[in-house]
């Protein structure tokens, strides 16, 4: 399974996003981003199946949660 990452500014935002996605039955895992995935040092993201990327974006937008970027899945 190919995995993508939604990057967030903080652990709090990542956990808020994880709760919103969990309510929609989308499984995610909190990961600490690699240094080359951030510009300012420590940051967190949610790893999920790339097949769910559009659903993830839609659900987070509906919950007014904004990922700082999406990593993987062939999209910027």
């Amino acid at each position, binding site marked *: 399974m190919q995995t993508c990452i939604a990057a967030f*500014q903080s*652990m*709090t935002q990542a956990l808020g996003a994880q709760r919103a996605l969990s309510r929609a039955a989308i499984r995610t895992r909190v990961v600490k981003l690699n240094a080359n995935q951030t510009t300012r040092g420590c940051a967190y993201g949610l790893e999920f199946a790339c097949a769910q990327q559009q659903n993830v974006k839609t659900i987070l937008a509906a919950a007014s949660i904004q990922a700082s970027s999406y990593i993987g899945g062939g999209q910027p």
Partner: protein
Amino acid sequence: MIYFDNAATTFPKPPTVRREIDRCLRDYCGNPGRSAHALSLAAAEAIYDCRAEAAALLGVPSPEQIIFTYNTTHALNMAIKGLLRRGDHVLISDMEHNAVYRPIWALAGFGEITYDVYPTFPEAPECDTTAILSGIEERLKPNTRMVIASHISNLCSAMLPITEIGAFCRERGLLFVVDAAQSAGIEAIDCTAMQIDALCAPGHKGLYGPQGTGLLALREGLKMSTLLEGGNGINSLDGAMPDFSPERYEAGTLATPALAGLCAGIRFVRARGIDSIRAAERRLYRRLRDQLTELPGVTLYAPAREGSTLLFNLDGIPSAEAAARLDEAGICLRAGFHCAPLGHATLGTGEDGALRVGFSVFNCAEEVDVLVRVVAHILHKMRK
């Protein structure tokens, strides 16, 4: 032992609070927000749970707007010093605790701000909203930027009309800061509906968490300057603190076991229901007030305002001495000035302060009756 010092800190705590603190220390007390390993994540999730519970209880739209502090004083200092700018004018009520008065007094002493005090008429039988709003309006200046209100006094049960003051402030573009030290968990609070910009609350009083916990609920979109700077596990290569809540305001490791306990405390409050808690404590208040009113030699302050806190004096006995005699009888309550010189002056308690009874959900009618009997005995012995 009978504990009536719940306005200072509630005791005992619900068993669920004690159990969760213990469970945290045994099972998941990693450093929250610092890593993605299992123990750090478990701690971060516990803290997020606490934010979510607090946000739901206080009518805050997003858990991210709940900032954890050590206590209400810490939260008030953050709001006051983080939102005010040099040259601002502030209005505070005549019932404010030193948690408000001292930071304001210090800023004024440094020449940073000016302030005035508006009257709230706590001795009136009912809250006079019109008079309070008029008092605020009369003291407005072109540079007035903030109004601070103690939701419920820490001395008596006088409550300010928060909803109306919030609307008044929003209409005039003023910041509205609320000290909810005595109301969080006891009165319904909806920060959004009440148009509160910054609500400061303790975790260890009406929310039944442990000491060392408090919170600041900051309106979304409002940005404060920081009181503390330091590490928080994100943007570690930046010299500047992040510009988003709550991480902007939470430097250093949070008190995970205490916040896990606070989460259990808030869940306890939500399960019992604010209405039920308030009703139970008011029943005790009426029972005590009505019996003390019948005793000659007892002076009550603002007795018509029913709530969770009753202030009184025994004629001819300094409050500290009366409290010591009550302590000998196994009754814990607080004497003196309760860190609220403005309020004591407003109520006219005099040079010795007064005795304060504060109820929690764990008090009962029998305890009130014991207190009344001991008070009657003390007065009787004094007259001999």
